[in-house]
């Protein structure tokens, strides 16, 4: 499908525009958090512990007395990095496996599909739990390693859905006349895959991947909340929420603000993904 009509259909959807606006703000926040707050998220004063919102600190203070607004702004980066990296890895691995399986067919398809079934048999959160137990992190692990482990955990278990999507696209496309034409003109398999099969998978993959970023961010926050995902030197919404849990009665602000940012981020991706899926679907474009 050509990008232009899809874009025209998307531009008219308010849900898509809201999602896009949200996303732009969040991306800016992840790239240059200093634009949004002058405070240092690591500067904490225990005397201010769990203090509610005031004029100087619109979101109040956390358990250690850090400025919650700064913590929440700086927490955007970790979530975005995990969500985007995990999705990128899943798109590459799952996409390749699915394309090759669907295009090659026969025993290659049988082997790869069974392999995907095996990974699909392990629920994402449980599998991620197992991977993170196998590679534990603590406060002394460098931040990039902790993050990489979470990305790894999500990728190992998360690629199967995407493989199913690209596999079915490849199966549909490989019987198309233009693929036959390309083959009769002497194109090799790699060229056919890259030039003819891959482009038709881009639409459905993009729609799914957008929602997947939100889904991975939610799972990352869940893992961090449990205490086995990202670890304290990394500022993460999941950890902030875990810290707030024992005090939800006395200091609800500690729960509210990180939760709101987390939910708005997931919402942004869900809105964009849902709108692009609808725009790509010929049945709803009718």
């Amino acid at each position, binding site marked *: 499908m050509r990008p232009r009509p899809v874009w025209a259909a998307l531009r008219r959807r308010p849900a898509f525009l809201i999602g896009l606006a949200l996303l732009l703000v969040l991306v800016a926040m992840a790239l240059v958090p200093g634009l949004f707050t002058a405070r240092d998220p690591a500067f904490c004063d225990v005397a201010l512990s769990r203090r509610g919102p005031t004029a100087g600190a619109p979101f109040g203070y956390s358990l250690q007395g850090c400025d919650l607004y700064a913590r929440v702004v700086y927490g955007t980066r970790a979530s975005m990095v995990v969500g985007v990296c995990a999705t990128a890895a899943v798109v590459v691995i799952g996409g390749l496996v699915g394309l090759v399986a669907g295009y090659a067919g026969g025993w290659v398809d049988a082997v790869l599909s069974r392999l995907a079934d095996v990974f699909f*048999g392990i629920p994402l959160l449980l599998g991620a739990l197992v991977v993170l137990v196998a590679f534990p992190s603590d406060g002394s692990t460098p931040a990039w390693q902790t993050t990489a482990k979470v990305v790894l955990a999500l990728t190992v278990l998360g690629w199967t859905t995407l493989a199913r999507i690209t596999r079915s696209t490849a199966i549909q496309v490989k019987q198309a006349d233009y693929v036959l034409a390309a083959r009769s003109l002497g194109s090799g398999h790699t060229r056919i895959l890259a030039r003819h099969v891959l482009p038709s998978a881009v639409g459905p993959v993009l729609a799914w991947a957008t929602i997947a970023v*939100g889904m991975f961010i939610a799972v990352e926050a869940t893992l961090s909340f449990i205490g086995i995902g990202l670890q304290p030197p990394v500022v993460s919404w999941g950890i902030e929420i875990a810290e707030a849990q024992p005090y*939800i009665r006395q200091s609800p602000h500690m729960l509210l603000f990180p939760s709101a940012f987390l939910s708005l981020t997931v919402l942004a991706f869900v809105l964009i993904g849902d709108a692009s899926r609808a725009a790509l679907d010929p049945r709803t474009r009718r």
Partner: protein
Amino acid sequence: MRRYVVRRLAQAVPVVVGATFLVYAMMWSLPGDPLAGRCDGPCPEAYVDRMTAAYNLADPLIVQYGKYMANLVTGDFGVTFAGAPVADELLQRLPVTLQLAALAVAVELILGVAAGVVAALRPGGVIDHLVLSSTLLVMAIPVFVAALLAQTVLGVHLGWFPITSDGSIGSLILPAIVLGSLSTAFVARLMRSSLIEGMYADHVRTAVAKGLSRRRVVTAHGVRNSLVPVVTLVGTDFGSLLGGAVVIEMIFNINGLGTLVLRSIRGGEIGTVTAVVTLLVLAFVLVNLAIDLIYPLLDPRIRLG
């Protein structure tokens, strides 16, 4: 029909073996020495020998796994590092998690299908828009955040539900609603689109033409056929339900497998973690197998073909 059942059963075997092996291999083989950190300083040789024998650590991984699964089938789930059998606590907690999951699936099916059908009756109407936007909102709020919010608002401030579980079914209602909420949203959306599509089918038009009431057309001819993809979704989503149950149990303090697995992770009891995760993976695969086996009841093309 018989061939379909046999083929589906045969397909499930490699998945069960592969998935459980994967979990076992990650738990016992990746960390290098599974006994590392069990004692203060280097472990006494007697302890290492005892543990190596208890967990078959001297065998190649595949043999270890084989022995583990053979024991599992006979109800022996291994022992903790302290030597207590894992099975006791596991079997005591299993019913709690099953109840929670079953309640959540019930919520999902009743609320989700009802919302989807009502929305599909008038596509583009007020209720349709309401269902579509509210499900988007539910999809955006991660389950653990929804649980904390529900606990704070409905439990602490309004006092409508107990804040923590005392093991009774009544105290599982709020956790189950929260746990099922995400899947409910997916079910409602799929039910809606599936029914809208289904109402254009020839057999539905025939039913209208022969003068059936609208109610009968929708329930007997539209909904029944549109349920097939919904039931599949409930199956594939059961995995995220089991994962979510771990967090929900933690938040509402429910004594199920989820709290057990988290406690075992903190205590480094990888034997217990392996047992619980293996059990949950089995549950997931079996639920999907069961769903595939009841397809023929819903779809005559499989029954007769």
